[in-house]
C-alpha cells in the first residue's frame, strides 16, 4: 500500500519549502495529499503520515521520515508520548536557547498546541484538501446550508442570534442583529459582502481560512444570502494574498451549482489598508476611492450601491456553517465568557516560539497564550510587550497578562481584541519607536477624508520625533523681533511635547470618522502609559500629561 503523506499547501508552508518537499515524497512513490495547515507555523513545512508529524522538514529528511514511520508503525504501542509537544506541559523555558524546536514522529492531535484548542471554525484545518469537494462533503460540509434552506430566513437569523456570534473583524457587533436589519429592510437587490481585507499586522486567520477551507466561507456566505434574501455575494480580498485569491476563484467555480441561486465573486483590493473598514470597502467595490463613509446610514440599510448589505468578516461567515448545523447554535453558545460567546481563532505572531493559529473559547488569559501555549519569545529574551488587535491595538504590559480574552474586558482596559492577532515583542523593542510607527502607519494609510486622522497622524509623527529629541527650542527665525506672533520663550521641553501628544490622541480618538484614526491612539497611549521610561528621562512628565486627559 502506498504511504499517504499530508503536506500543507498553505502560503506559509509553501514559503517554507513545502512544494519541494512534496515533490521529494512523490518521487519516493508516496501519495502526497496537499492539505490545509494545522496552524503550527513554527513546524512548517510539517509532514504528516498516519497522524504523526515531522517538522520542520526539508527534502533531505525524506528518507529519515519514511524510515521512522515504518519503524513507528511496527511499534505503535511503544510510541513515546513525552516528546517536545507530545503531551507534557510546556514550561516557558522549555527548549534550550537557540535550539530549533521540532516535532519528530509525535501524534499531532495529541500535541499540547492542538489538544488544548476548541476548533469549530478551523475544524477541518490540517485534515482536508482545500479544493476537494469530496473531502468537504465527507467532513460535514454543506450541512449548515442544507438545514438553512429547510428552516427559512427568520429561523436562520434566530439561530445566529441564539449562538451569540459577534463580528470577528474587530467591532464585535452581534451578527444576528445585523442580519435581521438587512432581512427587515425591503429591497429588490441585497448583497452579502465578505470583508477579507485582512490588513492588520499579526493576523493571518482569514488568509488561512480562505486558503485552507474556501468552501466553508462560501457556504457561510450562501447561508447569509439565504437568511436575508440576497443572491449576490462579493469577497473582497487584499492583493497581498495571491494564494487565497487563486483558491477562492477555483473553489467558486467548483461549487457554482451547489450554492445556486446564490452567486459569488472574488474582488481584489489594491493595497489600501483602510479598505478593511466596511464603508471604505464598499466604496472600493463600487470602483471608487476607498474613502470612509459617514454612518448612518448603516451598510445594512444602504450599503453596496445603496442597497441593503451584510458586511461580515471572513471569520464571522466561517463560523456560520457550524452554527447552522443541527444543534450548532447551542454548542457554539456554550463556549466563551460573558457576552463573548463561542470561539476565537487567535493568531500568535511576532517574537513567539510557538507561533500559529490557536482557536479557543473566549476567556483565555494572555499569560496562558504567551507562555503556556506560545512558549515565550522566539529569541529567548524576556517579553516586554504584547500588541493585541493589530496595528490599532494597545500594547499590553506583562503585568496585565491576567486579562481574559473577552470584548468587554479589553474595552475596560483601554485595549481591543480586534481580529485576534497577538504580536509579541522581546525586551529589545523601543516603545517610542513603536508609537511613532503607529502614527506613521496611520499617516500612510489614512484615506484623507477626516482631518483628525489625515493631519493628526502626521503631527503625531512629528511630536513623537521631538519627544525623542527632548523637545524643541525656538529657532532663530521665531526669535527675530519682526516675528511678533512667535513666543519668545525657551520652547517646549519633552514634558510639554508629551502633553501635546496626549491632547492630539484625544482629538483623534473622538474626532475621527472611523477606527483607523480613532484607534491609532490606542497603541500610542498604551506605550506611553506602560513604558514612560522609553519616552522621557523624567516619568513625572508622562504622569502629568496623563492626569490631564484622564483625570
Amino acid at each position, binding site marked *: 500500500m502506498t504511504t499517504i503523506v499530508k503536506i500543507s499547501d498553505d*502560503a*506559509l508552508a*509553501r*514559503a*517554507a519549502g513545502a512544494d519541494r518537499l512534496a515533490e521529494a515524497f512523490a518521487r519516493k512513490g508516496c501519495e502526497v495529499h496537499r492539505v490545509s495547515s494545522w496552524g503550527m*507555523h*513554527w513546524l*512548517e513545512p510539517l509532514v504528516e503520515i498516519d497522524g504523526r508529524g515531522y517538522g520542520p522538514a526539508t527534502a533531505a529528511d525524506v528518507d529519515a521520515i519514511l524510515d521512522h514511520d515504518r519503524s513507528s508503525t511496527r511499534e505503535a504501542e511503544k510510541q513515546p508520548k513525552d516528546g517536545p509537544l507530545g503531551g507534557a506541559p510546556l514550561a516557558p523555558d522549555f527548549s534550550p536557547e537557540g535550539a530549533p524546536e521540532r516535532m519528530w514522529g509525535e501524534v499531532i492531535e495529541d500535541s499540547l498546541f492542538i489538544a488544548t484548542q476548541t476548533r469549530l471554525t478551523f475544524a477541518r484545518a490540517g485534515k482536508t484538501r482545500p479544493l476537494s469537494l469530496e473531502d468537504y462533503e465527507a467532513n460535514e460540509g454543506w450541512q449548515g446550508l442544507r438545514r438553512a434552506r429547510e428552516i427559512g430566513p427568520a429561523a436562520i437569523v434566530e439561530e445566529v442570534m441564539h449562538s451569540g456570534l459577534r463580528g470577528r473583524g474587530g467591532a464585535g457587533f452581534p451578527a444576528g442583529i445585523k442580519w435581521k436589519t438587512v432581512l427587515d429592510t425591503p429591497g429588490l437587490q441585497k448583497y452579502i459582502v465578505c470583508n477579507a481585507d*485582512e*490588513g*492588520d*499586522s*499579526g*493576523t*493571518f486567520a*482569514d*488568509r488561512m481560512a480562505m486558503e485552507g477551507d474556501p468552501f466553508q466561507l462560501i457556504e457561510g456566505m450562501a447561508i447569509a444570502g439565504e437568511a436575508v434574501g440576497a443572491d*449576490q455575494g462579493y469577497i473582497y480580498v487584499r*492583493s*497581498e494574498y*495571491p*494564494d487565497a485569491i487563486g483558491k477562492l476563484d477555483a473553489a467558486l467555480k467548483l461549487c457554482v451549482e451547489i450554492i445556486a441561486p446564490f452567486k459569488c*465573486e472574488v*474582488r*481584489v*483590493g*489594491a*493595497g*489600501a*489598508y483602510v479598505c478593511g473598514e466596511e464603508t471604505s470597502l464598499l466604496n*472600493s*467595490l463600487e*470602483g*471608487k*476611492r*476607498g*474613502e470612509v463613509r459617514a454612518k448612518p446610514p448603516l451598510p445594512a440599510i444602504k450599503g453596496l*450601491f445603496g442597497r441593503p448589505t451584510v458586511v461580515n468578516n471572513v471569520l464571522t461567515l466561517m463560523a456560520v456553517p457550524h452554527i447552522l448545523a443541527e444543534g450548532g447554535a447551542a454548542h457554539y453558545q456554550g463556549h466563551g465568557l460573558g457576552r463573548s460567546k463561542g470561539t476565537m481563532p487567535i*493568531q*500568535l*505572531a*511576532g*517574537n*513567539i516560539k510557538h*507561533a*500559529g493559529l490557536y482557536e479557543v473559547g473566549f476567556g483565555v488569559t494572555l499569560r496562558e497564550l504567551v507562555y503556556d501555549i506560545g512558549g515565550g519569545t*522566539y529569541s529567548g529574551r524576556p517579553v516586554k510587550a504584547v*500588541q493585541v488587535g*493589530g*496595528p490599532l491595538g494597545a500594547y499590553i504590559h506583562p503585568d496585565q497578562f491576567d486579562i481574559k480574552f473577552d470584548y468587554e474586558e479589553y474595552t475596560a482596559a483601554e485595549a481591543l481584541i480586534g481580529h485576534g*492577532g497577538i*504580536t509579541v*515583542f*522581546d525586551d529589545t*523593542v523601543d516603545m517610542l519607536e*513603536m508609537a511613532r*510607527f503607529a502614527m506613521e*502607519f496611520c499617516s*500612510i*494609510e489614512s484615506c484623507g477624508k477626516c482631518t483628525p486622522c489625515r493631519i493628526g497622524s502626521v503631527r503625531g509623527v512629528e511630536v513623537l520625533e521631538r519627544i525623542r529629541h527632548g523637545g524643541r527650542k525656538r529657532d532663530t527665525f521665531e526669535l527675530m523681533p519682526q516675528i511678533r506672533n512667535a513666543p519668545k520663550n525657551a520652547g517646549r521641553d519633552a514634558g510639554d511635547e508629551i502633553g501635546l501628544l496626549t491632547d492630539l490622541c484625544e482629538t483623534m480618538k473622538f474626532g475621527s470618522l472611523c477606527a483607523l484614526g480613532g484607534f491609532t491612539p490606542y497603541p500610542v497611549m498604551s506605550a506611553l502609559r506602560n513604558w514612560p521610561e522609553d519616552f522621557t528621562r523624567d516619568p513625572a512628565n508622562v504622569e502629568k500629561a496623563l492626569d490631564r486627559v484622564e483625570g
Partner: protein
Amino acid sequence: MSTKEQTLGEIIARHHRREGPLLPILHDVQHEYGCVDAESEALIAKGLNLSRADVHGVVSFYHDFLSKPDPRPVVQICRAEACKARGVERLINDATLAAGERVKIATVYCLGLCSAGPAARTGDDLHIRLDEAAIVKLVENA
C-alpha cells in the same frame, strides 16, 4: 486605432458589464503595462463614461497602481509590527545595499506571514524566516 487603444478596449469590454468594473479594469491595465498612465486613464474614463478626474482619483488612491512603469524587479519587504518584532529592521540596510539601482525595495504592510517573519514577496512567491544572508540572496536573485 493604436494598439493601446485596442488592448484597453478589450479589457474594458471584458469587465464593463460587471458591477463596479473600475478596479478590475485597473488591475488588468496595471498587469498589462506595469502602470496606469494618463493615456490609459483617459481611455478608461471614456470607456466607462466617467470623468478623467474620477479615474485619476481612484488610480492615485491605491498603492498598487503606479503612474509610470518601473522596469526594475521588485522585492516587497514587510515592515509591519510582527515582522519588526522578528527583526526586519536589521535587514533593511543589507537589502538596500544589495539592491543598489537594479532592484526596487518596496515596503509592504503585512503579507499574512506574521508567525514566521521577517517576510518578503517577489512576484507571487513568498519568503519567510529571512535573515541577513537570505535577504541578500533574495535581492540578488530578483
